[in-house]
């Protein structure tokens, strides 16, 4: 046998070649990745239940907002009886702020259920080999997963904020309308921050988890436990600990953005007004830190598992 066993010189390579598949008009692969992720999640009953809960939160706040604005418009006699409408049923600011705070928690459960398996399930299903044998970069994959995870809070937080705001604009008395126009900016700001934090942190945790269910439970439990520990620490005088809990930092930023005053109805709906962090800037940095940590964890794992 020859030392160089390969004898490739006698082949006619140009016979029978297949053309490359046409490129034509193509959709970004990130869309297909997000779609697959959400399709898989939609098959779970828990997904539908948790989305119904989110819808319930929206409906509750919608009723509150509509009621509050109708009082503003027609309930002059309430004010005449000695109690201003704002103190009784609150304002659109309070409704939006309260919605953002409450929906942050329900959406945290939703993203845990829907996106908990985003990467963990791909790993378990050996999907990396199949994905990355296609014209796909790590960035495409990352965008797809972030997009899929971000779509959940987008639908449960951001779109409802817009819906509530439009409702407020539509039925508010003319005198109040000019003030409500500008309310969209801070409300959307709070919503975008929520989307960012929730999408990146769940993706980061999913990237290190092995099973979708474990990731989901760990995410929700972690959020609740962290919140409890932080509250205990801040009550004990460690004010800086407040910045560790994302919901507390978000609360701080939302209050700064929307400047709500708590009404009687508001205190009935969301309970006693909880203390917040001292620094809005510090809270914002803490939230961005969580988002960065989540994405960083995700990217680090992706780089270590997928070459190229």
């Amino acid at each position, binding site marked *: *046998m*020859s030392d*160089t*066993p*390969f*004898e*490739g010189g006698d*082949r006619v*390579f*140009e*016979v*029978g*070649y*297949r*053309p*490359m*598949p*046409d*490129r034509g*008009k*193509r*959709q*970004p*692969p990130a869309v*297909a*990745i997000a*779609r*697959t992720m959400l*399709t*898989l999640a939609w*098959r779970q009953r828990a997904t539908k239940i948790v989305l119904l809960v989110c819808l319930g939160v929206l409906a509750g706040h919608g009723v509150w907002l509509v009621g509050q604005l109708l009082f503003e418009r027609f309930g002059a006699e309430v004010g005449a009886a000695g109690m201003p409408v704002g103190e009784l049923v609150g304002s659109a600011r309070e409704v939006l702020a309260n919605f953002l705070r409450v929906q942050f928690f329900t959406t945290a459960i939703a993203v845990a259920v829907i996106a908990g398996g985003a990467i963990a*399930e791909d790993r*378990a*299903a*050996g*999907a990396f*080999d*199949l*994905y*990355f*044998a*296609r*014209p*796909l*970069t790590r960035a495409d994959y990352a965008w797809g997963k972030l997009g899929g995870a971000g779509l959940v809070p987008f639908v449960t937080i951001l779109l409802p904020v817009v819906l509530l705001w439009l409702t407020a604009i539509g039925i508010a008395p003319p005198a109040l309308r000019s003030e409500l126009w500008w309310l969209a900016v801070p409300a959307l700001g709070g919503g975008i921050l929520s989307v960012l934090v929730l999408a990146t942190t769940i993706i980061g945790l999913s990237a290190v988890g092995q099973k979708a269910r474990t990731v989901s439970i760990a995410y929700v439990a972690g959020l609740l436990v962290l919140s409890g520990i932080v509250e205990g620490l801040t009550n004990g005088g460690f004010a800086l600990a407040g910045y560790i809990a994302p919901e507390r930092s978000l609360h701080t930023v939302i209050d700064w953005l929307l400047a709500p005053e708590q009404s009687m109805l508001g205190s009935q709906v969301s309970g006693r007004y909880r203390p917040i962090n001292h620094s809005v800037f510090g809270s914002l940095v803490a939230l961005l830190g969580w988002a960065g940590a989540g994405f960083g964890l995700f990217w680090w794992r992706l780089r270590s598992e*997928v*070459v*190229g």
Partner: protein
Amino acid sequence: MSAPHKGPMLEAHGVSKMYGQVRALNEIDLVIGPGVTGLLGPNGSGKSTLLKLFAGQLLPDTGHVKLLGADPFHEPRVLRGLGLCPEQDKFYEDMSGHDFVGALTRLHGLPKDEAEQKTYAAMKRVGMERYGFKKMREMSRGMRQRTKIAQAIAHDPPVVLLDEPLTGADPVARADLIALIRSLGEEGRCVVVSSHVLHEVEAMTHDVVFIRYGRLRAHGDILRLRTLLDDRPYRILLDVDRPRAVAARLMGLPFVQAAQVLEGDAHPLEITTTDLDTAGREIPQVVSEMGGVVRGFTSPDADLESLYRYLISRR
């Protein structure tokens, strides 16, 4: 469709790959064109590593790999011309086979309708059109294999890499899949099949690549490779009357090294030769001159299994 790529479809030039201290591939030079090529070697020989390099999932430590003339690692766009069927038997278990293939086909950027159409065609081609809507967890191993092959060919790639594609398939499914793989090659695709089941590879192709200890041991047509192994004589089993007389006559021929009579065997005469072609031509003639006839003529050393055994035993 864009113009076909001219030139070798898969190339590896001086490719080495290390996993820590373990050298998985060592200075591999390989050029593969259209048709089916069997990739053979014992476990741990580097077959899967080579497939991953061609699929752009690994970067070689030295040398370079080309898929359709481009570096698949740095130019992932070229991967639109690749279909990979990995060895692993893991899936999204709650998905139907059809949805699974559809989801992966859409990763090529195909619009939904086109992806759906191609998915249906691929499932039909692998014989899964009736079972494609079953969940993956409910499928037999053979069905899962077929589904895996469907996702590799759905987007009509010119290069298809199949890692152990027949694992778990029943005999009927194996025959179907072998026919399918042959037809993929006949269509002008470059199909590389990594397998341990030698007779199945032989049924698909005579063009094989042998790898052992990460080194390329041989590449080419099975029979031509066998003739290159001139230090390994062939055994020929003959079914003839009067085997002793025939043996005595054949020993006088220059290409016959030895002859042995096997009492009570279906092939009572075993000849050892270094020239199978000449033996195939001249032995029946000699037997005929003696007034006999050769009822059986087989060489257990001329098949792929024998070649494989020889090649992996060579240091």
